[in-house]
């Protein structure tokens, strides 16, 4: 059953992007990965408008207090199998905003994370490498079962 689900991953990954309060540097690099220079669309990956169609969640930004429940809700709305990628330094350890009164903590305290892509902001090549690592990790998980 799991092997059959991973077959769908081999064809194309649909990505949903959440911004939990970032400066938009990482968001621009994610959208730049779709444009003709880096062109991730030739692999069939595209940005979808709702988490119910998505396979992979891309999260940027340090999580603000207002966004805490919304991130959890989006995670629950995404159907299995799913993977979570954290883009940028802010979600991993806080980046420059590490001591602030409005930040609800790094993302791995709220939802389980599969891949971290560090950088401020990371280059589009690094983001594509991160998505490729998610692919390999899911294949390995499927092969073990």
């Amino acid at each position: 059953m799991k092997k059959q689900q991973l077959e769908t991953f081999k064809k194309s990954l649909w990505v949903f992007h959440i911004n939990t309060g970032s400066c938009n540097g990482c968001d621009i690099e994610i959208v730049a990965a779709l444009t003709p220079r880096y062109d991730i669309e030739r692999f069939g990956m595209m940005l979808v408008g709702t988490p119910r169609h998505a396979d992979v969640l891309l999260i940027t930004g340090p999580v603000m207090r207002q966004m805490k429940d919304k991130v959890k809700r989006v995670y629950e709305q995404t159907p299995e199998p799913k993977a979570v990628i954290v883009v940028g330094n802010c979600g991993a350890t806080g980046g420059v905003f590490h001591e602030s009164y409005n930040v609800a903590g790094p993302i791995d305290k709220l939802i389980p994370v599969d891949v971290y892509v560090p950088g401020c902001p990371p280059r589009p090549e690094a983001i594509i490498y991160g998505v490729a690592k998610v692919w390999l990790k899911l294949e390995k998980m499927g092969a073990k079962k």
Partner: protein
Amino acid sequence: MKKLTSEEIVQYYTDEFKEKIKDARIEKRSAGSKKKEFYTIWLKIDKSIFKEAVKHLCEIQFPHLAVISGNDIGENIELIYHFSLYYGERLEEISINISVEIPKSDPKIESICDIIPGALITEREIQEMLGVKVENIPDNRRIFLPEEFPKDVYPWRKDEKGPQKLVRDMYE
């Protein structure tokens, strides 16, 4: 619209309000190879003539309000209104900063939204960040802080009402 130099503007204010102007100074800076100068005026006025001072400024030209900033100095709160005049003409703009001090025991000031409607957002912000009460403001809600933020905590203050207890270090 009247065309005055920066010294004449300061004179215009001291003629009208005399001793209620506590302090006035003019700063001059220059930039680039040709060293063209530009001026900044800093005025410190008494709280009682605040609204008339703003109306007085509107008689020269309708000003551009950039933002209101605030300082917490011990017993008082100092509010600084950053205006600028003569925009639109090459190398002619003069920045005017008017500062008012209000005591922490009675932090009230009048709203200027009836003269300059664009001041609404910045007045709402100083209300929630410093604990100042702006009278006759058209819209009293919070603007930047979340709903569940405690009511008595004012982030820009340096005394016990600051947000020290809410700070979380992400490394823990």
